[in-house]
């Protein structure tokens, strides 16, 4: 069975290369001329697209801890095949976010300061620590895959010995900073629009990252399914979809309930810049995919799941961008739109992420966790999506 619209886009390589080059040039400009000349940030709007990107990156990388927790702590071993893709996604996601954060800092040369100068009252400080520690955890979780490939065994054993506390630590760190990204805004009740400001921000951020993180792995497992050879059998994928549906439902209920109790729903009775953004976010990203995932038919169909999880991811992006940008605008007097340089840096870094992912998938045993055996083919790729190169050994194509 074929999945339409798969990302083996013709000409992906030239596109990625262009984006990365443009991004590098933009970054060069940013470092040479400073933030003022190259971004649309200002005293009134000190955080913009990049912070939004960080939210997105971290949220989509949430698969790293949910899947690891499910498989290794809750012993849902049947999900083993997606552990490595999940860890890889998270690892790349976090590295990129750290990179963007450093570009975003006014003093990138001081980026290490939070490690030695603490302020326990600062959410930002907590986030820096969590990011750093969790990226370390991820690199340790990822290291065995590389070492295995290189046939260096002894450190693997060493890592295995500490893997349990490591994983627990990783899950806790994730719980903390996923929600802390929401806590960042707790201190601006006077600035953030009531449709997004709520004392529950950390809770909402946490619930939604579970939905988006799992959606991300489902998307990957579908995209890299390579014809008939699925990473996960349909029933398992359907189970994951159920978890997403539950997370979406819990999120929507908490969100709506919160709007009602705070009285912020008044903002929704008229069509404004904000209410439109809100509706778009909640309907596209939460209600619609939830409704879809209720149907057995959707959960078990690849196309259905593809669409539903894509909606979750898009809606999630809406939500984070709305929190980081829309909700802080004072329409129409004070709005923010990223500058070209901001956009190019963001796109460039995103392209780096995708390229790194497909590169690593090609050379490391990510999608075939058991045997480190045959490595995937190369460049033929750019042509048609599916049929040709499914000739992976054992690939019983067009089945299932």
């Amino acid at each position, binding site marked *: 069975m074929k999945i339409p619209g798969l990302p083996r886009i013709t000409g992906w390589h030239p596109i990625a290369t262009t984006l990365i080059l443009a991004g590098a040039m933009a970054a060069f400009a940013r470092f040479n001329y400073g933030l003022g000349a190259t971004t649309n940030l200002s005293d009134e709007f000190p955080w913009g697209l990049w912070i939004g990107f960080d939210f997105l990156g971290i949220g989509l990388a949430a698969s790293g801890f949910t899947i690891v*927790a499910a498989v290794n702590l809750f012993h849902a071993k049947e999900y083993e095949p997606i552990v490595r893709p999940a860890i890889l996604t998270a690892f790349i996601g976090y590295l990129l976010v750290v990179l963007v954060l450093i570009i975003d800092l006014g003093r990138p040369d001081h980026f290490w300061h939070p490690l030695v100068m603490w302020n326990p*009252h*600062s959410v930002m400080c907590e986030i*820096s620590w969590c990011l750093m520690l969790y990226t370390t955890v991820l690199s340790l979780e990822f290291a065995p895959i590389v070492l295995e490939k290189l046939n260096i065994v002894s450190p693997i054993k060493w890592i295995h010995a500490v893997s349990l506390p490591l994983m*627990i630590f990783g899950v806790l760190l994730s719980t903390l900073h996923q929600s802390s990204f929401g806590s960042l805004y707790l*201190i601006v009740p006077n600035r953030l629009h009531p449709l997004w400001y709520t004392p529950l921000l950390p809770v909402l951020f946490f619930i939604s990252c579970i939905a988006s993180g799992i959606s991300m792995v489902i998307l990957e497992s579908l995209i890299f399914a390579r014809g008939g050879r699925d990473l996960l059998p349909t029933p398992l994928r359907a189970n994951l979809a159920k978890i997403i549906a539950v997370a979406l439902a819990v999120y929507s209920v908490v969100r709506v309930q919160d709007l009602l109790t705070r009285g912020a729903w008044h903002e929704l009775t008229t069509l404004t810049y904000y209410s439109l953004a809100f509706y778009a976010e909640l309907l596209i990203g939460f209600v619609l995919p939830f409704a879809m995932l209720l149907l057995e038919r959707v959960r078990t169909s690849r196309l259905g799941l593809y669409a539903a999880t894509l909606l979750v991811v898009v809606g999630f992006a809406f939500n984070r961008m709305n929190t980081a940008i829309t909700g802080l605008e004072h329409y129409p007097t004070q709005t923010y739109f990223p500058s070209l340089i901001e956009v190019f840096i963001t796109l460039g870094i995103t392209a780096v992420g995708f390229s790194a992912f497909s590169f690593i998938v090609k050379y490391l045993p990510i999608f075939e966790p058991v045997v480190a055996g045959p490595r995937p083919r190369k460049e033929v790729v750019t042509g048609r999506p599916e049929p040709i190169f499914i000739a992976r050994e054992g690939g019983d194509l067009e089945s299932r």
Partner: protein
Amino acid sequence: MSQKKAMLIDLTLCVGCNACQSACKEENRLPPNEEKHLSLTAYTALDKYNDLYVRRLCQHCDVPTCVSVCPVGALSKTEAGPVAYDAEKCIGCRYCLQACPFHVPKYEWSSTKPRIQKCKFCAPRLARGLPPACAEACPTGATLFGDREELLIEAARRIDAEPAKFVHRIYGKDDVGGTSMFYLSPVPFEQLGFDSRMGKTPMPMLTMSALSKVPNVLSVGGVLLGGVWWITNRRAKVQAFEASQKKDPTCPPEDKP
């Protein structure tokens, strides 16, 4: 520096002469042009509302939001009152700009080594026992410098003496947890651009409720997850044993510390 210092700004006395800004600019070696808004080169500015002038400047809050959000402690509340800034520590995250409830800190956007700029409450002058330049320059006494407690008494006395002249509120006494700048006004503060959505609770408390859970998440969460692992692992082991031994052969030879 035993006593906390403060300033009392009586809007009924301000004539809008801008002497405070000029003096401030001279003291801080800033370009002497007159400015209407806070900026990198204006640590204080006058906002005009009909016939009233409202002096804006850093409030040097008692529980400063900016200090609480700064990840590296580049901002700090000093004992004498001023909220000080250390550019050597600052990483330029701009959280202070985002969070300050009075929109005070300004950023050197055009620099490649940008810093924050804001009123320093003339900390060096205070250390020498002098009043801030702006208070010294004020010709009408609209800005009065002194000990925090004494100024509060003075402010209350003024309201008592002429109850018809003032709204009965000393802004800054306990707003956002108290500040070092007290305002007396003849009209409600909401009409003068003071944000009415901010209560008496210091803003940092909003975050503390979340941050205070961190140790709990770590300890309780750790135990919980460890327990879950133990239970599910045991179950898995039992199942595996019952079936037959089919575990991964990676660990045996080496460690079991």
